[in-house]
């Protein structure tokens, strides 16, 4: 009997191995993909004007000028928010600029990208802005990480979402055996603009995530590893001056004094603008690969490094660097953080978007002390005007009163749609 059972067991094993080949592990995957909606360039330019306020779908970068906040909604345009009463900000209009990611303001003019073009818009009356000039092909064509190639003769004004479900063998999708991670290696277009510290009084104030710079009547952007310099002596007609090679993979540009502080994936670069048409490399602080917005004052640069972006890297920290000698930045003081992004320096205070907004006393930059944290989840860009901080988050726009830093609090917010 036992021998029969053993024989039966062996037979079962053989059967299992034979019939197991019939099984198929399956993956049923649901996701969305997007197809572009194009419009002729002339039609797009005609529509760059103030329209009725629209709900904010997604927050981008910030520029503040006077009582108005110009909040980018990536690839759609710019929301105009009147915050003359920070406790009751009002969304008063929307400038339709497809492909817009960056903006800066000098005087009464808004300089903004519209895919490959640079637009100049008169915003002296925010409710009735007027397009003054379009500089074609100021920026390079975009490259997409999903290998999409756009029709460069037209402008993408919208994307149509398609939901889909596919079914396939598990082994066809499970893991990437090479461990390859695909990312865009090209330079992001950068524009840096006058900051709260670095700009003239007639300039708007950008957040540290900005990649536009306005300094000495020049607009600095970067394209394919080169500075692109535009002379704004005639504000409505930016004149291309030339380009100069810069470090690659620049993400943010922060102007202060005579210098431009460039946040790149591998370090912070300092360029001197003694000759504004030909910025010259002055110093550099290298760090591990990461995204790194930067702000600075006369003696100190503050750099945040964070993960979970296309920059890769596995570091989340704040670096405080002595730049008394900009040619030889000092050894950084490092503070460990959660996922720090934008930051702003005002007086002796440093405000850092690190999940929430953290307020540090940096009277002694080498030993910053945390004063308070304001609960503003997922904040990533911040601008300070007086004792009010305006921060963009994934959930909306928040206004923080830090008159008393130890008891800073949220005054008001404008949530994004469906929040």
């Amino acid at each position: 009997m036992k021998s029969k059972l053993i024989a039966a067991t062996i037979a079962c094993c053989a059967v299992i191995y034979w019939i197991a080949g019939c099984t198929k592990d399956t993956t049923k995957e649901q996701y969305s993909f997007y197809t572009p909606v194009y419009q002729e360039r002339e039609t797009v330019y005609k529509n760059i004007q103030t329209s009725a306020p629209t709900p904010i779908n997604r927050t981008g970068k910030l520029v503040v000028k006077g009582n108005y906040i110009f909040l980018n909604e990536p690839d759609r345009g710019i929301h105009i928010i009147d915050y003359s009463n920070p406790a009751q900000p009002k969304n008063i209009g929307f400038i339709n600029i497809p492909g817009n990611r960056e903006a800066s303001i000098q005087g009464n003019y808004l300089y903004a990208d519209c895919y490959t073009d640079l637009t100049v818009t008169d915003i002296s009356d925010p409710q009735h802005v007027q397009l003054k000039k379009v500089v074609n092909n100021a920026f390079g064509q975009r490259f997409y990480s999903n290998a999409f190639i756009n029709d460069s003769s037209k402008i993408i004004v919208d994307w149509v979402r398609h939901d889909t479900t596919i079914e396939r063998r598990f082994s066809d999708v499970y893991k990437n055996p090479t461990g390859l991670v695909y990312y865009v290696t090209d330079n992001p277009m950068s524009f840096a603009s006058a900051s709260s510290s670095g700009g003239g009084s007639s300039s708007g104030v950008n957040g540290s995530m900005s990649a536009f710079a306005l300094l000495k009547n020049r607009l600095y952007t970067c394209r394919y590893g080169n500075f692109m310099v535009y002379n704004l002596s005639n504000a409505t007609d930016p004149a291309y001056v030339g380009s100069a090679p810069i470090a690659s993979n620049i993400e943010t540009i922060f102007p202060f004094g005579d210098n431009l502080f460039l946040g790149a994936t591998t370090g912070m670069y300092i360029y001197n603008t003694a000759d504004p048409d030909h910025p010259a490399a002055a110093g550099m602080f290298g760090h591990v690969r990461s995204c790194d917005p930067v702000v600075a004052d006369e003696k100190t640069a503050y750099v945040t490094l964070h993960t979970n972006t296309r920059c890769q890297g596995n570091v989340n920290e704040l670096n405080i660097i002595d730049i008394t000698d900009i040619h030889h930045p000092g050894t950084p003081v490092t503070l460990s953080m959660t996922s720090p992004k934008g930051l702003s320096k005002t007086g002796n205070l440093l405000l850092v978007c690190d999940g929430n907004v953290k307020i540090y006393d940096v009277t002694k930059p080498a030993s910053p002390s945390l004063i308070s944290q304001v609960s503003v989840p997922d904040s990533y860009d911040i601008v300070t005007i007086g004792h009010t901080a305006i921060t963009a988050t994934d959930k909306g726009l928040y206004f923080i009163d830090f008159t008393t830093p130890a008891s800073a609090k949220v005054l008001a917010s404008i949530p994004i749609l469906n929040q």
Partner: protein
Amino acid sequence: MKHFLLAVLFAAIAHCACAQQVKMPSLFVMPQVSLLNGDDHVSADVSLSAGLQHNKWMAGIGGGLDFYKIRSIPVFATAQYQLFRKPETPFVYAQLGTNIPSPLKDQHYYGFSHYTESSFKNGLIAAGGIGYHLWDKHSRGVSLSLGYTVKTQREYYVENQYDTRGLLRQITHSMKYTFPRFSLSMSLRL
């Protein structure tokens, strides 16, 4: 699920109590190891089930660790019916429960332009098959069984799509995995 498992256990107890006045149901504890053979892959699971045995029926609940492709913790209700009322007998069994993912770090999906770890959600576990109690002394013994088992689970990840200006959009992918396997199991009845 918890309620379902409790209901099965109570039903088994109630059934035994009503049907047999003389012989009371007995407790069993059954550790088991299984060889799982699926789509170009061989793996294993270990489990422990416990419950009540009465006449030809065994019913209980169990849990274990399933290493097939994406590690998971199945928690299930189990029932077994013995074909004959003797120590050595063939039996049929069935299991149904929830499959709790417990993936190893390298078992998460990593796609293009994806830098955040994916998350998982529970799925189902279902099994059925035949077996044989090889020997039995005082209701203790070794069993061999051959079965078919399916586990499912869901994984979610966010794909970040970039262009040269930065983040273009985030797309959430939902993947439902279905793993059918044949199993060869050996269990002890304690």
